Structure formats: structure tokens, C-alpha cells
């Protein structure tokens, strides 16, 4: 239902949600992710925070794509999702390796090397 509505009145100023609203949401999410990366100690959650950052980028891309009438943004979002999937696989594999060796997933406990 909603889809049809949007399609029929895409640029109606009354129902149009301003672009800045999406930008706002994405910026908030991006910062959330950023802070998550910086403060969380658990690697898996750090990874999740990165996912949030990527999602924030996706919202932006899709929103711009919509407002600029260009498909490139959506394609970009699509590729970002694909890349994120691959990275998550590799990343989790690495975490497993580390866990096996060290039984820890915390940043602070990984300290053979000097930070």
C-alpha cells in the first residue's frame, strides 16, 4: 500500500519528507556506530558498530538516490551490503582464530603486541 502511495505522489511537497530528515537519521546512526567502535571492548560488537556505520551510509545513498533521481546510489548501497557480508565472514573467522588461541574477544586482552 505504502509503496503505491509513494509512487503516485513522489514529489508532493505536503507528503514529501525532507532530505535533511534522512541525513539526520543517517548522521545519528553513523555517530552511534563510530562511538561504538571506539568505546566497546568486545570485538564482535565493534564489528556490529561498523555495520551500523555502513547502514548509515546506505540510508544516505538511497535517500540521495531517491532525491537525485539517480540509480547509482542504490547500486552503491547494494554493493556495500555485499561487501559487508564478505567482510563479516572474514572478520568473524579472524575472531574465531583469536578466540581459539586466547579465549578472549576483548580489545584489552589482546595485548601481545603493543598498541
Amino acid at each position: 500500500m505504502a509503496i503505491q502511495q509513494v509512487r503516485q505522489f513522489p514529489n508532493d511537497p505536503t507528503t514529501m519528507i525532507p532530505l535533511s530528515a534522512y541525513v539526520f537519521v543517517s548522521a545519528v546512526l553513523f555517530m552511534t556506530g563510530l562511538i561504538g567502535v571506539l568505546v566497546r571492548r568486545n570485538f564482535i560488537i565493534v564489528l556490529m558498530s561498523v555495520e551500523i556505520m555502513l547502514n548509515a551510509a546506505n540510508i544516505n545513498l538511497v535517500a540521495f538516490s531517491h532525491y537525485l533521481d539517480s540509480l547509482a546510489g542504490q547500486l552503491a548501497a547494494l554493493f556495500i551490503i555485499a561487501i559487508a557480508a564478505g567482510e563479516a565472514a572474514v572478520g568473524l573467522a579472524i575472531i574465531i582464530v583469536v578466540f581459539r588461541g586466547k579465549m578472549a574477544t576483548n580489545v584489552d586482552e589482546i595485548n601481545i603486541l603493543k598498541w
Partner: protein
Amino acid sequence: MMTFDLNLSSSDLLLLMPEIFLTLWLCVVLCLDFSLKRITHQQLAYLSIGGLGMTGLMLVGFDVSGITGALFKNMFVLDHLALFFKILIVLATALVLFISIDYVRDFRFFRGEYYCMVVMSAIGMMFMASSNDLLSVFVTLEFSTFGFYVLVAYLRDDMRSSEAGLKFFILGVFAAGLLAYGISLVYGETGTLIFSEMAGNPGSYGLAIGFILIFAALGFKIGAVPFHSWIPDTYQGAPTPVTAFLSIAPKGAALAILIRMFYVALATFKPMWVILFVIASIVSMTYGNVVAIAQKNIKRLLAYSGIAQIGNVMIGLAAGTKQGSDAIMFYLLTYLFANLGAFAVIIAVGQFIKSDEIEDYNGLNRRSPFLAASMLLFLLSLAGVPPLAGFIGKLYLFVAAMEQELYTLLIVGLVNIVISMYYYLIVVKKMYINEPTDPTPIVASTPIKVAVCVGIVGTLVLGIYPGPFIDWAVNATLMFSNIVGPVAAIPISSPGG
């Protein structure tokens, strides 16, 4: 009306030939590894090197015969710049494979896959060198980097390696997040992802933030301060051939992107980003060199020296002229030989004494004069001592900066030469002046000797007769000749304007 067209002619495919060929070759090698039980990892290595060699020849052929072009709405360009960097990357990869052979012998399993991952990363970086839009940048960058995530953590039994891989990965994906967000902002501001279409766009905060984020992400790749924190740990923890690979190839590819991005997309904002690069360059050089002094591990030392070298490279970007980019490219070439050579020596020594501590290099000259002498050459080239390649590279960079009257940068750069001399000489001192605790001779294996010899020849030839190579770099960047001259004076437009 929107049109979708895909008319790839065979001549267009030709442009993609090197990458396609290498990918297919990679698959063949992979299949051989899986299917033939008796194939040794050395054979796989030489196969991969063979493939890289053919790719390299192909690239050289393209470069000589001027086969260039752009595909996919300018998203993939194969110009001389891209060819230069591709050749650089292929060369680096081949050398890395040479120095890996000895190292991989000690792996307990997945020897063949190691070469695949290396070559795969190389393919990613080759694409990076050609990518002309932000999305390609993102994809190819991640493509090449994920190979490194795996490679860095390849020594599964070695906690340091896993830990290095983890740190590298975390910071890598973090950079990816920044990059993605930056791309999105730039896209919003310009409506396009392709560099050449962005040129001339009026400035805005969104664009600025976007590009700063992208710069930060690429800064992670090249290891510029303040995005350098992964470098020392990763360099130290990773398998040494991987460290060698990391120390040159991704930097080259990322610099190709940086050059394209700043020279093409952002040419109008030169006054702004020049300041950015001047600061980054000064900080990187100084930080890298000063911290390197205190290092006890040779890989960490080279890591910090790498940070400083990137600072040097950014002098060229700060100049922001064609001469600057020429200097960067030539410098990378010199850096390739010196750095890979140095790592080859580290591997040879490390394989023998099972240590990378600088202390253990005491009296290397007595244990292996060849390795010590070549290490000496490489370190001095990194320090920038004539008649070695590094000197010409640095001089070229300084000349480029001088032409743009960046005196502060120049002075800092020159002072840093002296600082860097100090810690390189400390290593030299250990090798030559100190007496060895254990005088057993160190013997390097043939592949490593090959790599070291290539490094020596490259370092000497580039230092003594750099003319053709400089010409090569100069010819590769002919398209930037228009930005030589007075600094572009288009101011950033007012917000919202």
C-alpha cells in the same frame, strides 16, 4: 528516458585483459592446488609468479603501445597512470612471492592458498589503480584489503599474527565505514560517483566532510598519521612476506586513487587540500621518524619508517602539481625496491635466527656479508643517500615542493632526512660494527637471493640512471599537465549556496 546499454566490444575487453587473465590464472592455480596432490607449494609459487610475469609483460606492452581507454562510463580507466601503478603492483607481488617461498615452507597447511590470497589482493589492487569512481574505489579497496586480513592472520598458531590480523581487520572495517559514509555524502553533493564528473562542483560542507572521511579511509591504507595506529602492530605480527607486501602494494594503489581523486575530482579546491597534505606530511614524517628511533624490532622500525616515507610521499601530493605526482610515482618505485629488499633480508635472517629483534642483527656482516651489504644498501636508500634510488626520489619530491614554494614542508623534510639517518644507521651499526653473539654463517635461499638482487639492481639503477624511469613517470601523468602552474583560486562557495 533512461537507457541501459552494454556494448562491450572485443577491443574493450582487451583493456580488461590483464586482470581477466590474472583472475583466470589464479583460478587455474587454485584448481591445480586442489586437484593435484603432489604439486608442491614451490611449484605453485612459480606458477603464480609466471602468471604475474605474463600479466606484467602484458601491462608493459599496453604501456609501450599506448593501449588506453575507459570503460563502463568512465568507471574503469586504463590510462598510463593506471598502467604505471599496475606494473608497480605486479612487480611488488612477484617479488613478494619470491620472498614468500622460503617462508611458506614453514606453514603447516594451506600453503597453496597463500599464493592465491596474495594474487587475489594483487588483482584487487590492480583494479584500484584503474578505478575512477567512488564506488569502484570502495569495492576494490575492500577487495584488496580483505585479502590482507586473511594474510595477516595467516599464521594461525602464532597469536601475534592472529592478533595483528584482528587489529588490522577492526581498523580496516572501521575505515571502510568511514569511506562508505564519505562516499554517500559526496554522492549527495555531486549526484555522481565518477571523479571526472565531479570536477568543477561548487564546494560545500557536505563535500568537504565527505572527502575528509574518504581521505581518512585512504589514510588508513597508506598509514598516514593520525591513521597509522595499526601499522606497527600489524607489521610486527604479520608473516614477514605479508608485511613486505603491505608495506608497498596497498600504498601504491591507494596513492593512485588519491592522485586521481585530488587531481581530477578536487582540482578546484587545491588550496584547501594542499594545507591538509602539508600538515599530514609534516606530522607523518616527524612522528614516524621520531618514534622509529626507539624501536627494538626491525619490522616495527620499518613500520615507523614506512609512516615517515608516506609523509615524504605526501610532499608530492602537497605540491599538487604534475611534477608532484611524477615525484610520487618515482618515489614509490624507489621505495618498492628498497623496502621489499629490506624485507627480503629480514626474512632471510628471520628464517635463520627466528627473531626480528634488532639486537639479533649484531655482526650480520660477519655472518652473511651479502645480506648485510644489501641491507645496508636498502636502508641507505630509504634514508636517501646518493647514489641510491631513495635519494633521487626524495630530491624529486623536494624539487616539486620547492616549485610550489612550500618551504616549511621542505625544511621539515630535510630535517627528517637527518633524523631518519640516525635510526637507519643504528641498524647499520649493529650489522657492521657490533660483533655477533653467534657467529654461524647465515645462508639465504635462492628465491630470496633473487629478490634481494632485484632490489639491489633496482636501487642502484634507479639511483644512478633514473632518466628513463623519471620519463616513464612523467609520461604517465600527462593528463595532469594542466594543473601545473598557479594554484587554482576558486573559493569554496558559501554553505547552502
